[in-house]
């Protein structure tokens, strides 16, 4: 278990240009605190790369490489192969990619790298849209969300399709370690990062990253929104290891989805009928979670 007193004072991600309050900074800096100085970071086009590598600034104090949007998995393979060829065994290879870069355009490269069994850590920080380019939907945008290309109005309630389940896609690869996390649960995240350190092969963490700008909430509410996502069952914290899924948080009763939705501009247009749609979707997801991962484990 990670103890705050033992965490390094060193900041390996510092002075970046992310919007105030953005969960992205917390995710990047805590991940690097756990992995330490001997880490190489791979960054596809995304907020995470844009806000940290604005010439002449370089906000990572560890080596990093920015590259094509689709290439995270391939670059991680190259990095770990390069280290192996040089006989370097004490360096972590870390990918930090968005939901679009992971679940849409980068999925093939990621799947290939996981299937090959290369040694790397992949963090998908999920702000649930293409934020860097101005809030366009991705396959991880949740149902009902207003984005610039799933606009809400008289003819539409916003995004029509539910969020794709990336965690289950990774489990289908029989990956050594996969987890979901949230920037609002930093200790849970750090403990998961700690686990990735000692395991060989591909490791994957899908972490929710509430985005004040794209979701439409005040900059001091990032953690509150992230917690509400878990408490209302709109997100969940779990990990997959040795062929088993463990739920890290199992809310006894889920809070009404409205408590999460009304705090965000992207859901403000929803009415009773569309909120019902979201509630039903959440309930059906949780039926699956409880049947597969909660009941079967006890």
């Amino acid at each position, binding site marked *: 278990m990670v103890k*705050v*007193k033992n*965490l*390094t*004072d*060193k*900041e390996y*991600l*510092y*002075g*970046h*240009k*992310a919007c*105030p*309050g*953005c*969960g*992205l*900074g*917390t995710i990047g*800096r*805590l991940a690097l605190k756990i992995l330490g100085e001997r880490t190489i970071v791979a960054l596809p086009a995304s907020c995470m790369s844009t806000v940290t*590598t604005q*010439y*002449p*600034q*370089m*906000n*990572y*104090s*560890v*080596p*990093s*490489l*920015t*590259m094509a949007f689709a290439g995270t998995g391939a670059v991680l393979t190259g990095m770990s192969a390069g280290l192996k060829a040089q006989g370097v065994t004490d360096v972590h290879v870390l990918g930090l990619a968005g939901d679009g870069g992971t679940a849409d355009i980068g999925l093939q490269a990621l799947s290939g790298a996981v299937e090959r069994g290369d040694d790397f850590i992949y963090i998908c920080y999920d702000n649930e849209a293409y934020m860097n380019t101005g809030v366009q939907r991705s396959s991880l945008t949740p149902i009902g969300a207003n984005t610039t290309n799933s606009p809400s109005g008289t003819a539409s309630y916003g995004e029509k399709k539910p969020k794709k389940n990336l965690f289950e896609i990774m489990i289908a690869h029989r990956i050594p370690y996969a987890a979901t996390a949230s920037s609002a649960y*930093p*200790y849970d995240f750090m403990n998961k990062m700690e686990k990735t350190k000692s395991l060989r092969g591909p490791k994957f963490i899908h972490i929710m990253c509430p985005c004040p700008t794209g979701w439409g909430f*005040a*900059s*001091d*509410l*990032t*953690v*509150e929104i992230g917690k509400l996502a878990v408490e209302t069952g709109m997100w969940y914290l779990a990990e997959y290891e040795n062929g088993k899924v463990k739920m890290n948080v199992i809310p006894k009763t889920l809070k009404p989805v409205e408590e999460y939705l009304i705090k965000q501009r992207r859901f403000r247009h929803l009415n009773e009928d569309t909120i019902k749609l979201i509630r039903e979707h959440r309930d059906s997801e949780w039926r699956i979670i409880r049947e597969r991962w909660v009941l079967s484990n006890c």
Partner: protein
Amino acid sequence: MAKPQIVKFKFPESLEEMPLGPSAAAGILTEPNAGWRVQSPVIEHPKCTKCLLCWVLCPEGVIGKENEQLEIDMNYCKGCGLCAHECPKDAITMVQEGEADDQ
């Protein structure tokens, strides 16, 4: 030094000094972000139990825990207010930028 410090930017004068390809030297800061801020966090130290939740959560990593009292690097604090909102002891107050100096 736990946090990187600002260095003066020297404009490349020849091709050899230009960064090569997509990679660059690490940890280079040339300008503060303080100008973004409209509010500043002020810590009431007697109320603080040093639980370090603010230190963990701060997206900028500007809170320092090395010394007896927490310290904030105001060059890079963006004034998001997350620390004040999450502090379990209500030990942090956000004040309008400019007013913090009078406290």
